[in-house]
């Protein structure tokens, strides 16, 4: 690969419902300084800072990044692609380095949804005000619609959703970045009440805020730093209208078309022909069990006809790839940061810095990002070796 780039430092605050003791500058500083220290790179070596902040209305302060992430004298801009923000920001940083504009870039994503007292109303304001707002769409019902399609087309059941959610909750108990990880069983999920059929209350991720920072470095300055190398980074955008995704030849509503295409392009860049065999770990931005199942298929980890079997293996931690070792966004989904966290968690695993959740032999990983109703997708492949 021309101009290899590596992640040489990461920093995360804890993710909790509210950081009521910190203002946003402090949250950002914690993550950013941790990343710079981890990278052993000073702010004076950073050629660009990219801020990742998704809907302003969650923080209730417009352009909260300007007061918390931007630094005097350093080039800066903010990316907002909804849930994919964190990964889109990273992709922009890679372009900057590849263009020869900087050797080191700092990416910082911060989520301040702990400010919001009515986050669901905010989430509902993402829908088209002309044709859709009157029909009470919510992000939860948006997910539910697809879950019903998976049940119709592939035979998934509520049991699968509950088991997968329970599995992720068990895994999340080892993730020290989560302030209050929740442990629950599949039965507890099924008993927790229906939010939007078939999604149950315990499936929905809790409100989480926090900051995540990543330092990207061009190969010429990596030296002997502990690095997770970028093997591929791809993104693609889809149509908005969910109704347009049922009958098109390119792929149906559950085919996660742009993730599928991003992953295929990333696999090609990274020389991967057998994802399940050649990747050790997958961190998906899948805030619900049904989202995760669609991602398995889009990433080519299983064929559609084997999706139930693969899901059952993943539930039992028997899949031949580590699945969501952080617990995934079902445990904590700070919107602006979540896609960057998926990449950060993979990088920690490769670099052997994942603490209690560290797995052995992680040398190649894939992380996904999703924005909107899986409209914006990214796929980032990291490797222990320089590509």
């Amino acid at each position: 690969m021309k101009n290899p780039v590596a992640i040489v430092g990461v920093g995360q605050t804890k993710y909790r419902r509210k950081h009521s003791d910190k203002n946003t500058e402090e949250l950002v500083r914690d993550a950013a300084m941790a990343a710079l220290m981890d990278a052993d790179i000073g702010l004076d070596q950073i050629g660009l800072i990219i801020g990742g902040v998704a809907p302003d209305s969650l923080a209730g302060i417009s352009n909260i990044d300007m007061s918390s992430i931007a630094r005097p004298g350093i080039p800066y801009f903010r990316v907002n692609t909804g849930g994919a923000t964190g990964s889109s920001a990273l992709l922009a940083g890679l372009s900057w380095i590849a263009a020869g504009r900087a050797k080191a870039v700092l990416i910082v994503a911060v989520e301040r949804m702990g400010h919001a007292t009515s986050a669901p109303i905010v989430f509902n304001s993402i829908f088209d005000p002309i044709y859709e707002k009157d029909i009470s769409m919510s992000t939860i019902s948006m997910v539910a619609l697809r879950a019903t399609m998976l049940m119709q087309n592939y035979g998934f059941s509520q049991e699968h959703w509950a088991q997968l959610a329970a599995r992720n909750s068990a895994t999340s108990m080892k993730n020290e970045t989560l302030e209050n990880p929740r442990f629950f069983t599949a039965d507890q999920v099924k008993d927790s009440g229906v939010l939007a059929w078939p999604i149950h209350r315990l499936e929905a991720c809790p409100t989480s805020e926090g900051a995540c920072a990543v330092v990207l470095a061009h190969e010429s300055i990596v030296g002997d730093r502990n690095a997770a190398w970028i093997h591929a980074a791809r993104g693609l955008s889809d149509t908005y209208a969910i109704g347009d995704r049922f009958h098109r030849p390119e792929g149906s509503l559950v085919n996660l078309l742009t993730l599928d295409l991003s992953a295929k392009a990333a696999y090609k860049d990274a020389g991967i022909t057998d994802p399940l065999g050649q990747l050790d770990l997958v961190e998906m931005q899948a805030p619900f069990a049904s989202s995760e199942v669609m991602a398995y298929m889009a990433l080519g980890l299983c064929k559609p006809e084997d999706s139930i079997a693969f899901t059952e293996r993943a539930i039992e931690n028997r899949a031949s790839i580590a699945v969501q070792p952080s617990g995934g966004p079902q445990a904590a989904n700070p919107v602006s940061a979540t896609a960057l966290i998926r990449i950060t968690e993979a990088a920690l695993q490769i670099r052997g810095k994942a603490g209690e959740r560290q797995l052995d032999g992680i040398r190649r990983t894939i992380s996904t990002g999703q924005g909107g109703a899986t409209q914006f997708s990214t796929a980032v492949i990291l490797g222990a070796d320089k590509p």
Partner: protein
Amino acid sequence: MDNQQSEPLTIAGNWNFDYRYFAGDTATRFFKELKDNRRIMGTKNPTSGTIMVPARSFSDADYVPTTEWVEVGPGGKLEVFSIIGAKFPGLPDPPFAIGYVTLDGADTAVLNYVSGIDLSDLDAAAEVLLKQPRVKAIFKDMREGRITDFHFEVVDDAE
């Protein structure tokens, strides 16, 4: 982590912005057709021939204007659904069902409320809806020119 000597300061805030969204000629006509003529219209993508509902002024997939109008429905097929079981701020009281329906003659599905099934047992209702039943668009007597001028009613095939 919290300062134990005093509660950290919070200040209440409220965002209350007014917007007027210009629906544009295409959406304006779509809603007028609902209100005045009780019909649901789509527009035809000249490149692919697909009929897009609700009517659109352009196809983003082929990046062309779409100007030919076509009536669709009132019958259709329920593609997917969800039954909202909890109260969300700003949304109607549960339970209620919504779904995407491909109206007869359309190539895309349109979202609306779905009624005509007993929602007292959500799992039982889901069982019916999972079969992707036929539905029919039912118009209100008093229409306002909004998407809620109609809703979908499950057609009982058993008859």
